[in-house]
């Protein structure tokens, strides 16, 4: 059998010594990457520096715009008061709970809708309406029903992320090749086995996609919720700072929020590559580069 042997040697040649041209190519890629990173950093640095200089030179009013050094000072003050991590903690906890609840219940609902064609046909108009409804409009309803507190905030988050998750995951399920499902049936597989052996693994990319969208939506839900009800958290600090005209506090909270959201998004990306690597998809990504 010459065919496998040929393929084997192809695999081996990938592993062995790299040619000078290939080394040069890799070097070029690396240099390109460094240039991008450096430019990104320089832009950030220039913006912050410009902001600081303009504020110091009194060209812009730091009372309105705040300024980097004051943001750092505000962080210091919050830290000394012991309030910094309390606020960050409250918001992050609410977001993570809302995010996990939204994702898990969204996937479960999508499974239920796939399982029962009747259920999915019945619920279709409701999903359409709920999907287009601005969920923020429901905020006051949640507060009246549940009371002003973290639970109302989490419900708000759930309301924003749930429908999107259901639709995204269901879409992934529908996109699975029918022949793969037929294959499972041909071995005498049950509907449950179709779900676990084909549907869930095959629609992993859409589930991850839903997760990525959900990270952003969860932050929206939590901050909106905090605007409406809370006594603590970054959203609360933003509203409070705005009301008492302490823009330093507002800007500080926004900066912290940005960092926290980025960390959480990176968490999802890390989870994705972890699962993909475990299932051998890493090779494909490498090929794409």
């Amino acid at each position: 059998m010459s065919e496998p042997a040929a393929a084997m040697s192809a695999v081996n040649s990938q592993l062995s010594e790299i040619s000078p041209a290939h080394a040069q190519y890799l070097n070029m890629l690396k240099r390109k990457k460094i240039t991008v990173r450096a430019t990104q950093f320089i832009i950030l640095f220039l913006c912050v520096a410009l902001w600081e200089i303009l504020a110091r030179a009194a060209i812009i009013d730091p009372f309105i715009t705040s300024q980097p050094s004051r943001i750092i000072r505000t962080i210091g003050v919050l830290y000394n008061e012991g309030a910094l991590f309390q606020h960050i903690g409250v918001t992050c906890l609410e977001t993570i709970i809302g995010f996990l609840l939204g994702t898990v219940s969204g996937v479960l609902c999508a499974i239920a809708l796939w399982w029962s064609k009747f259920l999915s046909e019945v619920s279709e108009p409701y999903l359409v309406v709920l999907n287009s409804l601005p969920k923020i409009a429901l905020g006051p309803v949640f507060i009246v029903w549940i009371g002003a507190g973290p639970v109302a905030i989490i419900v708000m988050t759930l309301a924003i992320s749930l429908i999107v998750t259901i639709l995204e995951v269901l879409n992934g399920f529908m996109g699975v090749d029918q022949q793969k499902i037929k294959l499972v049936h041909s071995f005498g597989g049950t509907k449950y086995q179709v779900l676990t052996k084909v549907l869930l693994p095959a629609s992993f990319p859409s589930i991850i996609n839903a997760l990525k969208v959900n990270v952003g939506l969860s932050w929206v839900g939590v901050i909106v919720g905090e605007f409406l009800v809370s006594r603590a958290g970054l959203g609360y600090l933003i509203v409070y700072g705005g009301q008492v005209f302490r823009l330093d506090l507002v800007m500080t909270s926004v900066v912290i929020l940005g960092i926290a959201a980025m960390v959480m998004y990176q968490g999802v990306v890390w989870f994705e590559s972890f699962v993909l690597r475990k299932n051998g998809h890493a090779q494909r990504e490498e090929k794409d580069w």
Partner: protein
Amino acid sequence: MKPVVEVRGVAMTYQSPNGEIQALDNIDFAVSEGEFVSIVGPSGCGKSTLLSIISGLLSPTSGEVLLYGERNAGSSKKTGYMLQKDHLFEWRTILQNVLLGVEIQKALNPETKEKAINYLKTYGLYEFRNKYPEQLSGGMRQRAALIRTLVPNPQILLLDEAFSALDYQTRLAVSEDIYDIIRKEKKTAILVTHDISEAISMSDRIVVLSHRPGRLKRIHNIKLSCTSRTPINCREAPEFRYYFQEIWRELDIHV
């Protein structure tokens, strides 16, 4: 000899909002142990439907299918189904892929695993057991798909245009390969194809179906005088052209 597969008066009618579509009408034939039978017919004549009925994935509107003399209800462990494409799961390694069938049938144990590994060794895929499907060539993937079908030990193989997704050269090589495996494992096989040459070169008998609704038009016993009975060699046999002309006329294709 008792036939392995008996198709008795099978008819199939699909219901749709726009009316009924009669796909198959009164199909009768039998396949005996170790035989290789092809089903050919014009497109849309219901040949894939017939295969699904034999496998038990579909129930006929009337008539019945007997496997080893028993009425077939539901997907049977006696049959193994091969689809047009390999449909290896890209998130599973080759070994995990070929174990899919026994895993689904809850028969995954050291014995069946050993068997799968032996198949991989015999058919040159053992080195690739921990690779993922995308790292294999089309021919190797098709071979892995066949092993996946063989591991649960079906006696009857149902090949649903199993080579048509491959390019022509690979297709010739793969059909040679798979024909060889099927003979070596002494399986009974039913191949659905629209490729007349493929059918003649591989089969002991060919069932020709008519336009929709598919009816049995004729059954050919293929007797080719070739030195070694491999699909490629058989294409050189003098009778090959005769069968080709005959079947081509019977298919009655107008475009």
